[in-house]
């Protein structure tokens, strides 16, 4: 029982990171109907932003650990950097291809992904780096004998706050409503005076900054980072987005949590060998039996 609670908690913590990445996939798909395969690498850039910001900031602290405020500042910094990266990539690379066939943009996204991965190796070096200990991992909660560390808790809470924040932006603000309008019908949206390009840019900024935050949270739990670290989490988050129903925001969050939990259970109870297989097994199953995903539905409009 103790171990089970621990596993559930670890699973949720890992899942919340997948969820944050999956949100970017699903939002961008919702607006442009294409999978931004470079999204996992934005997550990597987030982690490296944290690494370098950590070096710059964390030495200021005496204990060797940054304060909570400092960690927050580093995370926000990484979000800004990734937001800018997403904005720039969209403007420079995807926008000129807006009217091209979807396959062209998809292949271009893979190109951007490779560029970031190997550009990263060139700039950061190919060797794994150890992510700065932004926060000390203290055992905080003792639940029926299960010891829960503070860092996984911080990850879960932070991801939760970000997801609630995103939900508020999408559902309650004007730009969020415009995002939903553009996602439904860009032509109609432009006839209402909505600047589609601005909405697309905004979507890339938000999606990429969430991936940036995920990079920092990942670094807290798994403090070894390298330029290729985005590949697997990126693919798994993509599976999470498909599992939840691509284009569906709550679906991406749910999908991320499910993948995180299953992966942790498989690692803990079956064998770590199958850890990475589980996500792709799910992808095959979901595509076979429910291609619209758990929460996705075919939209029916009365005429």
């Amino acid at each position, binding site marked *: 029982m103790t171990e089970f609670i621990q596993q559930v908690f670890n699973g949720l913590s890992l899942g919340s990171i997948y969820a944050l990445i999956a949100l970017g996939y699903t939002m961008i798909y919702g607006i442009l109907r294409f999978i931004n395969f470079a999204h996992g690498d934005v997550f990597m850039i987030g982690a490296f932003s944290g690494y370098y910001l950590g070096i710059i900031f964390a030495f200021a602290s005496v204990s060797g650990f940054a304060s909570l405020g400092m960690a927050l500042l580093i995370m926000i910094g990484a979000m800004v950097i990734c937001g800018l990266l997403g904005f720039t990539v969209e403007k420079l690379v995807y926008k000129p291809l807006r009217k091209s066939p979807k396959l062209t943009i998809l292949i271009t996204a893979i190109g951007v992904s490779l560029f970031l991965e190997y550009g990263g190796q060139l700039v950061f070096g190919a060797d794994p780096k150890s992510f700065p200990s932004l926060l000390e991992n203290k055992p905080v909660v003792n639940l029926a004998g299960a010891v829960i560390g503070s860092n996984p808790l911080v990850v879960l809470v932070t991801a939760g706050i970000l997801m609630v924040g995103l939900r508020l932006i999408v559902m309650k603000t004007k730009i969020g409503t415009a995002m939903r*309008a553009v996602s439904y019908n860009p032509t109609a949206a432009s*006839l209402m005076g909505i600047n589609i390009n601005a909405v697309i840019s905004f979507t890339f900024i938000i999606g990429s900054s969430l991936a940036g935050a995920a990079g920092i949270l990942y670094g807290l739990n798994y403090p070894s980072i390298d330029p290729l670290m985005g590949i697997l989490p990126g693919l798994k988050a993509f599976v999470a987005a498909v599992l939840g129903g691509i284009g569906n925001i709550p679906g991406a969050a749910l999908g991320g949590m499910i993948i995180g939990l299953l992966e942790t259970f498989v690692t803990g109870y079956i064998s770590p060998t199958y850890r990475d297989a589980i996500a792709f097994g799910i992808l095959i199953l979901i595509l076979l039996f429910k291609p619209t995903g758990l929460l996705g539905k075919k939209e029916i*409009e009365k005429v």
Partner: protein
Amino acid sequence: MLKVENLRVNYGAINAIKGISIDVPEKSIITLIGANGAGKTTTLRAISNIVKAAEGSKVLYDGKDITSLPAHKIVEMGLCQVPEGRLIFANLTVKENLDMGAYLRKDKENFAKDLDFIFAIFPRLKERIKQPGGTLSGGEQQMLAISRALMSKPKMLLLDEPSLGIAPLLTKTIFEKIVEINKTLGMTILLVEQNANLALSVANYGYVLETGRIILEGPAKELESNPEVRKAYLGET
């Protein structure tokens, strides 16, 4: 208020619009009638610049050349289109659809007043304010589409086939409301319709479009009694 000069639109090698000119004076209802495929929708789409007009075309609105202005800028200038098939945001509530109509407006304090005005014209929408747009009937969606455009505080409306796929009785109501909007707000309207009878009954002046060319124009009353129009579009044999 709106002047279309020598408008041409090509879809690849196909010349959909072959150089037409339309003049819409302020506060008038002008109609563009014609059969399916004549190019009516293409004309409106080219005016709103969601379809590119060919070289040499000119669209003047309020004396300014808007031919190559992005679609959202044209709305900003007060020229708003109610598109064919209504294009309601089915995933957004009625209220959110109306909010999107008011997307560019900064005068939030006047929204309540404008909503009251809209609900006075279309009381049905008030009952459905929290419902997703996709759950409305065709007629209600058309009301919402017109209201959504009105929320942008336009000076001129482009209406594309407001009667399309709507029960005849509701169509009549909607056309009465169009006239009401024209009269009470002094709204300039360019109305595109397949239902020539209905369109000519509310318009001041009409153009008849046939395979991308204007073949006839004149005051609506004259067109109504023109034997050629009666034969081709008003179902007379």
